[in-house]
């Protein structure tokens, strides 16, 4: 079952393109990574999905409900952590959580667990919170009533590595409970670590939508080798680079034929590596 389904979702700010013809689906119980550099249209997409912006064209449903007509019902089951998190400075942490709990109007089943994991000074006013504390309370308010789906816009910014790890663990735990998460990010390692599938967006257009694993395997391996002969004598593929005596090139799927070719040379050193998501990212953004 798909939790989010968009079809040619487009948002223009006047003549400026926010996002164009976005068609994707997010399955129930997965962590979907939404990847792109700053200004690619990630936040626009999220704000459109949440009903903050009216789509210029196209449509989207969340839990089978149309975002334009039933957004209030949708938001009962969907929580949101804004990228640019601003909260009411004059309230204390506790007052803020109580206010939002009252607006959600249901059992705050995960509140205790969250407060244990992401401990914040509840009696202090929010204007006295550090960036990390604000981020933590943003996470708490989103997950506290255990919503079916949480949409997150770069949620780990401002968290130290230890807290980031705690957060990732929490996300995976939520996934195991069958909850869905939509995670926008420009941090590749994060997506690499927790996401099941990833959509890559560039200049407002979706340019890839794949399983994280396939994406990695599909893009093959990086081979680096040193030979006793002059490196220039090696007949590699077109994009072969030679640097400090190392011959480096990328192979997609015919690794076997390459290994066999190597036997004609005297191999001094050989490294075969997985293509990291980072390499793929650079490949996507530098290519074309």
């Amino acid at each position, binding site marked *: 079952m798909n939790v989010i389904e968009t079809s040619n979702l487009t948002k223009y700010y006047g003549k400026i393109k926010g996002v164009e013809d976005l068609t994707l689906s997010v399955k129930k119980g997965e962590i979907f990574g939404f990847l792109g550099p700053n200004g690619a249209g990630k936040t626009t997409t999220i704000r459109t999905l949440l009903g903050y912006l009216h789509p210029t064209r196209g449509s989207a449903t969340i839990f089978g409900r149309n975002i334009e007509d039933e957004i209030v019902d949708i*938001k009962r089951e969907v929580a949101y952590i*804004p990228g640019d998190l601003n909260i009411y400075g004059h309230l204390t942490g506790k007052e803020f959580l109580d206010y939002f709990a009252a607006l*959600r109007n249901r059992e705050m089943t995960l509140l205790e667990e969250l407060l244990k994991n992401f401990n914040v000074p509840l009696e202090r006013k929010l204007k006295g919170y550090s960036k990390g504390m604000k981020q933590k309370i943003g996470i708490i308010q989103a997950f506290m009533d255990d919503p079916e789906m949480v949409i997150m816009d770069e949620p780990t910014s401002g968290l130290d590595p230890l807290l980031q790890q705690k957060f990732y663990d929490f996300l995976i735990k939520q996934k195991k409970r069958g909850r869905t998460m939509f995670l926008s990010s420009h941090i590749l390692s994060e997506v690499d670590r927790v996401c099941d599938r990833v959509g890559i967006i560039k200049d407002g257009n979706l340019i890839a939508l794949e399983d994280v694993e396939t994406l990695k395997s599909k893009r093959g391996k990086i081979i680096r080798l040193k030979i006793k002969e002059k490196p220039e004598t090696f007949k590699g593929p077109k994009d072969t680079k030679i640097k400090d005596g190392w011959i480096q090139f990328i192979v997609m799927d015919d690794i076997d034929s390459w290994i066999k070719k190597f036997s004609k040379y005297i191999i001094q050193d050989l490294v075969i590596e997985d293509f990291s998501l980072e390499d793929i990212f650079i490949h996507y953004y530098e290519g074309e």
Partner: protein
Amino acid sequence: MNDIFRFRIAFQTIMDYKKTTLILTLLFMAMAVLYCGMFPAFKEPLEEMADSGIFESFSSFFGPSTFDMATYVGFLNLELYQIFWIVILGIIIGFVAASLISKEIEGKTIDILMSNPVSRKQIVFEKFIGLIPMTLIINFGTMLAVMGITVLIGEELSFGNLFLTHVASIPYFLSILGIGMLLSVIIDEKMKASIIFIALLMGMYFIETMSKRNHSILATKADKKIFTAVKKMHTKAEYNELAKTIVIRKEKLKPKKGMILVITAGTSDIPVAEEAVVTAEIMGNKVEKAYDVGVAGVHRLFDIKDKIFDANVIIVVAGMEGALASIVGGLASRPVIAVPTSVGYGASFKGIAPLLTMMNSCAEGIVVVNIDNGFGAGYFASLINR
């Protein structure tokens, strides 16, 4: 639907403005006590000033409703209510309302607020509701302060009227809230929204006090085209097709006791008669009409003889030879204003003939106005009819 009636945002708004409410209430109570307490000290100089007539210029500025400043009620009305209440409190409440939503937009807290299952409409509506308690508390807090200090300084004041004044101001402050909220939604910077609100309120206040000075307006000899143009600027304008008059009624005059009777000789005289009727009516006169009762069938005049004897002033509109004015003038004991009309055939010289007849009338008590001058007759009749 249940969620909508839980008013959580409204409640939060009340809590957010708890301190503001308290401070403003105390401030206005203090202001009321201060002003009322000051009155005994000012009483004498104020009475002197009242004798010198200086308040007339005041009241033309603040509207004719202003009482005499030298009385306690008048003093309260002008100093406390007109200035502090209507203007300053209006500005403060509008200021708060105008910043209400724009504050959330400018501070971007609206993002996280809207992630909850609430609609935009509900946010705006509940925020509006959330400001009402503040308005009411300041309102009635000030009322209690005025009551308290009045008893203390031993002045006379009808507490029932005071209460009514405060109750009546609720719709005023609610509309202030509404306008403020509207700006708050349209303009996403809170200072800008608040400043525009103040400009708007001050503008409205001056237009209101200025328009209070306006009397009713009458335009004669206006055709349909002119009326259409006037109507665009003033939707309350009324048109009388026969009289070709446009009337904009602003003030309600106390009706005068006496009756003005307008009589025409024929049906062609009716437009001129109507002009006189409209003029006399807008000047606050009771007007009765008797049309088409001319000398061609003089028995028709007998049917209205009671009216002729009742009338305080009579306007007679006649063309051709204009004999009707003499007959009525001979019957009535009250002044008769004769209006010659330009109807009739060639040798009436477009009204010269009846004009001369009327001027040469043997019956006394007749004055004559210019040919077709219904307005002049109506105006003059009104001056006689005091």
